[in-house]
Structures are given as structure tokens and as C-alpha cells.
């Protein structure tokens, strides 16, 4: 589904990604682990198309289509979703209004009519129930005054609504206590299917207890230095990252 080929990326002339290769198939969960500053979040942003980064070499291919020249919203329309480490606040825009706009813009891009209000409401309720989200939450301003857990749960709610092909979860576990972590992980597990794929980006192993990866990759200094199965995560937990340097 997603192929990352020899991806190099710069920010302000400094090379952050130095030749990343990934091959993610439908139904798979991949985890990228690594110490701070290894380029994990940069990889997430570059796949999503953030324009601060300059891709100098290589490509990101989704379903045989090169995404390199596409704007972030177009990549989103094609099924890329990024759960942000630090979701932004948009005062005065409710969770419901935001997701409604996101869904209808995506539908428009796909040549479909807007989802009728009644169906939209139904879908929102269904997904909110699935993720055990309080209805009151839906009428609050997006991320404004949200706790860390609420912000991340809202990201997963949007993911459930948009039904992406590839969901990238950037440090979704950061800032969450264990209860909030479980709720978020449960949500992801409910949405996961044979048709979509998940790319987890995390510093710690603990998220992987709840969302079990098929593959674990270790990113260090802009390169994947080791790949393996889920047991690799446990090994990293025990030994740290130093032995891989």
C-alpha cells in the first residue's frame, strides 16, 4: 500500500532523513521507534506532505501513485491520515463542525456529493459511541482547553470518521496516563482492518502492548538501522538504543 523509497529530506538545508525505505501492506501495523531527534516525526510530516521539509531524493508512493508533488490536502483525500503529536486549537470551531468540513471536503475531492446532515449526524454518533466519546465533547471548540487525553482521543475520533487507508500515529502515547492510553489504543484496534494500515511512531514500548505491531523499525540518525518483529520492541525496552548506534 505505502512504499517509502530511499527518502531524503531537509529542513533549512539540514538533512534529517537520510534514505528511508519502508513497505507497508494493507492489514499491517508497523512501528517506528527511536531516540529523540532521530527523525521520527519528520518522517510522519514528510509522508503527510508538510511543506517546511524539502524532499531531496526518493519518493513516497501510495497504491502505486507517487505523492511527492501532491499538496497535503490531496494526500489526505487519497487516504493518508496523521494523528498529530500536538493537535492545534481552533477557537470557535466545534469538533462536529470541523469533522463535517473535513468529510465533505474529502467527498468533494472524490467527486461525491456532501453527506446529508442527517447521515452525518448518524455517523458522528456511531463513531463517538464506538470510541466512548461523550456527546457534549462534540460541541466544544476544537482542542481548546482539552486535556492531553481528550486531544488524542479527538484525533482517533477523526481517524474513525475519515476511515483512512494509512493512519500515522505520531507519538500518540505521549502525555497520556495509562487509562487514557488504553482508551486510545482500543479505539485504534477497533478501526484497524484488513483494508487499512497503521504506522505507529513512538518513543516507548508501552503503546505497543496495546496496539501490537507486525513489524518494528528502529530509526536512528535519519536511517532505519534495524527492523524486526514485535519482539524487537521488548529488546529495545530492555537494552535501550545505544547497542544499535
Amino acid at each position: 500500500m505505502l512504499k517509502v523509497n530511499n527518502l531524503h529530506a531537509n529542513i533549512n538545508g539540514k538533512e534529517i532523513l537520510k534514505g528511508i525505505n519502508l513497505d507497508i501492506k494493507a492489514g499491517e501495523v508497523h512501528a517506528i521507534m527511536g531516540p529523540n531527534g532521530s527523525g521520527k516525526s519528520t518522517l510522519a510530516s514528510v509522508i503527510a506532505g508538510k511543506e517546511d521539509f524539502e524532499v531531496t531524493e526518493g519518493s513516497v508512493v501510495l497504491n502505486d501513485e507517487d505523492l511527492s508533488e501532491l499538496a497535503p490536502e490531496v494526500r489526505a483525500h487519497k487516504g493518508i491520515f496523521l494523528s498529530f503529536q500536538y493537535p492545534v486549537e481552533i477557537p470557535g470551531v466545534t469538533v462536529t463542525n470541523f469533522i463535517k468540513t473535513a468529510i465533505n471536503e474529502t467527498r468533494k475531492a472524490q467527486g461525491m456529493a456532501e453527506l446529508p446532515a442527517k447521515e452525518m449526524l448518524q455517523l458522528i454518533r456511531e463513531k463517538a459511541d464506538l470510541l466512548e466519546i461523550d456527546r457534549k465533547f462534540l460541541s466544544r471548540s476544537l482542542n481548546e482547553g482539552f486535556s492531553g487525553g481528550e486531544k488524542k482521543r479527538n484525533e482517533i475520533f477523526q481517524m474513525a470518521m475519515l476511515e483512512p487507508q494509512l493512519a500515522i500515529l505520531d507519538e500518540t502515547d505521549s502525555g497520556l496516563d495509562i487509562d487514557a492510553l488504553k482508551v486510545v489504543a482500543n479505539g485504534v484496534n477497533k478501526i484497524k482492518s484488513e483494508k487499512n494500515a497503521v504506522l505507529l511512531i513512538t518513543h516507548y514500548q508501552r503503546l505497543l502492548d496495546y496496539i501490537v505491531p507486525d513489524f518494528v523499525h528502529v530509526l536512528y540518525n535519519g536511517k532505519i538501522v534495524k527492523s524486526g518483529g514485535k519482539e524487537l520492541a521488548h529488546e529495545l525496552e530492555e537494552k535501550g538504543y545505544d547497542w544499535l548506534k
Partner: protein
Amino acid sequence: MSKFTEDDLKKELETKEYEYGFYTDIESDKFPVGLNEDVVIAISKKKNEPAWMTDWRLDAFRIWKEMTEPEWANIRYKKPSFQDISYYAAPKQKPKLNSLDEVDPELLKTFEKLGISVGEQKRLSNVAVDIVMDSVSVATTFKKTLNEKGIIFCPISEAIQNHPELVKKYMGSIVPKTDNFYAALNSAVFSDGSFCYIPKGVTCPMELSTYFRINEGGTGQFERTLLIADEGSYVSYLEGCTAPTRDENQLHAAVVELIALDDAEIKYSTVQNWFPGDKEGKGGVFNFVTKRGLCEKNAKISWTQVETGSAITWKYPSCILKGDNAVGEFYSIAVTNNYQQADTGTKMIHLGSNTKSTIISKGISAGHSQNSYRGLVQISPRANNARNFSQCDSLLMGDKCGAHTFPYIEAKNKSAQIEHEATTSKIGEDQLFYCNQRGINTEKAIALIVNGFGKEVLNKLPMEFAVEAQKLLEISLEGSVG
């Protein structure tokens, strides 16, 4: 990777043409340019006005002649030459119409282009529309329903004929002829406008609505609105404006007077979208408006405005809180783009005890525009326990525009409680990327963020207006970001 830079956005913004830029070809009955006593008399004659009205106009003209234009506002423009303007233009057509079928089809087409399908409004919404086209009312609907309640809603020219006692009593009582340069000019040459009277204890069953337009090239528009809510009555009044593209500057100097007698409530909402000028700041409407309301005991006046148009806006809808327990409110969104300049705000004059006022002002600046809030909160010595809350928020897009706040506070009573809050923010790259990532393009994202920013004000608008206002915000800001 294609990067949508600020430069790209600026380019896009500049090439955006005025959405409602069209011109209807209706034969017009127009005076030659210039202003003197003969012209004032001719305007009065044209409207078959009684002698007292003619004298009132002449008096205003003499006052105006002695006045000079105010220069204290934070706006820079080439002053209009008042002798190069024609002071009267009326669309040539049958004066009295009983139904929409009788309206000139060209005119109806114009309204359709503006999205103001009168027929649809009449059918679907509970709105009585008194349409003003180049100063003369051409259609008034819902008259019957209003008649039954004793509500008078008609062109002010008609009120001068049919309700002289009310007009004599109230016209100029809130905004006197001597008030300011533009109010004096309006008093001398006002062409038409709306008159509304709500009898004691009556709640007006529908939103009263007027659409103003400037259509005739080079004619100034001088509207005069007088709205009286008698004791214990309630009315919600909507005013909306769109204007076609024009090369030369058009002067607009309206006067609106509201009177809320004891226990009465007036809600006055405006969506203003006069032609703002092109990307170089050429053309556009000069909008010098005097709007003021008087609140007697326990009365309430609420001004809500969404200002997106005009090259120059000079406008301060105000409340004189004369009676005890009177309440004044001002909710405003002012958007400026390209070379637009707006100096707008309110005056809350607290005269009675326990009077309360709220000011929520949201300024959005883009392009090379300048957006100023100017507000006065005045507490008189005998206004015990007066309260005011003011909030002025500014949103900036790009680094060529300006946002300014000029709050004036004069408290002459120690029991007054006055609060003022202000914020300035910019639309952030991270906000835009977040929206982009959810499939929302930058244009739409800005619209979303701006609508969120203005939500407290938009929420105060009646439903049917809120939708139109949101659309206007989107149109006005397409492509602008920083």
C-alpha cells in the same frame, strides 16, 4: 513539492474579483451634479414633501455648509468633491406596486444575482422586505400582517406623508442635524430609507428587513432610517447591502436613528458588503454612517454588524443609555482586505443608573488594509452602578496589514465597573497544516478559522443572516494568509 507560499496567496487574493460586480441597466431619473439650496428644494419637491420637511432640509443644508469634514479617524483617502455628485437618482418605474409581478423584471434579475430572491424570501422565510434600489423603495411585502398588529413599516418618504407627527417628533432627535458633517449632509439631501414604528406592547412577529444597493454610477446614497419601538415592544431589524463594481468612488452617508421607549427592545443587524475597491485600492464605496439609538428605562438596543465591504468605513453604532436599567450591546466583525480602511466601533453613553453595556469587536485584517476599533465608554456622574464589558480581538493575515485599537473610557461615577480585554493573533502555519492534513484546503481552512474567530458575533445574527454573513467572510478573505 508545490509550496503554497504567502506570495502565491497574495497573487490569488489580488486576482479575486468582486463577486457581485455587475450593473443593471435600468433607466434612471437623475439630477445633474452639484449641491445648493435649489437642489435641496428640488429633492424635497420631487418627493412631494410638506413645507416643514423642506425647511428642515434647508436648515440642515445651511448647517452643513458651515461644517468641515472630520479628520480624526485613522483613515487616509482623497476627500470626495461634494459638488461633483448627483444628489438624487430614482429608478424610473411605477411608484406603487401591490405584488412582485409588477416589479421590473430587470430589477428582479438583479436581486437574484445578489442571492436575494424576493419571491423566495416571501415564500420561505418570515421576512418582510422593503427593498431600496437607488434610494426609492420599489416593493414592500408582508404589509398586511404588519398592519394587523398596528406596525408601521414603510419608506420614510411615505411616513413623512402619512405619519408626520411621528416623523416630526423623532427625526433628528437622536442624531441632530448639527451632529456631524455627514449627518448634516444626510439631513439635507436624504433620498429615502425606512421608517418603522412598533406600537406599545407589540412584539413584531417577523424580522424586518431592508436591502440597500447603490446602482447608479456616481450617485451618492443618503439613506435615512428611523425606528421607534414604543413601550414594551420588540423588533428585530435586518439591513443588508451589496453593491456593483464602480470605478469612481461612491459616497454613502446614511443616518440611522433608533428609539427604544420604556421596556422596549430593538435588535438591529447589518451585513455590509459595499464594493471595497480593486486590488490597488481604486474605487470602492466611502461609507460614512451615523447610527445611534436611545434607550429609555429598562430598554435594550443591540447592534450587530458584519462589515466586509467599502474602501473606507467610518461607522460607530452607539447607544445612549438614558433610562435606568437600560442595556446597550454592540457585536461587530469588521473585515478589511487589499487597501480597505475601516475605523469602526461604538459609543456607550451611560446616563441612567444600573445601565449595562457589552462590546464585542472582532477585527480581521488582510492584504494592505488598516482596521481600527474606536470605542467610547462614558459613565456620567449620575449613572450609579453602571457596568461595561469590552472585548476587542484582532486577527491578522500577512505582514502588510494593520490592526489598531483606540478604546476611550470616561468614568465620572466611582461605582462604575468597566472591563476591557483585547487580543491580537495571527492565523498560524500549524493551524493551516492541521486543516490541510484533514483534507481541508487552505482557502477553506481560513474560512473555518475566521468563522470560528467571529463566532460570538455571528451567533447574534438571525439565522438567515448568519449564513449570508459567513459566506461573505469567506468571499472577502479568499486567499489571504500569513
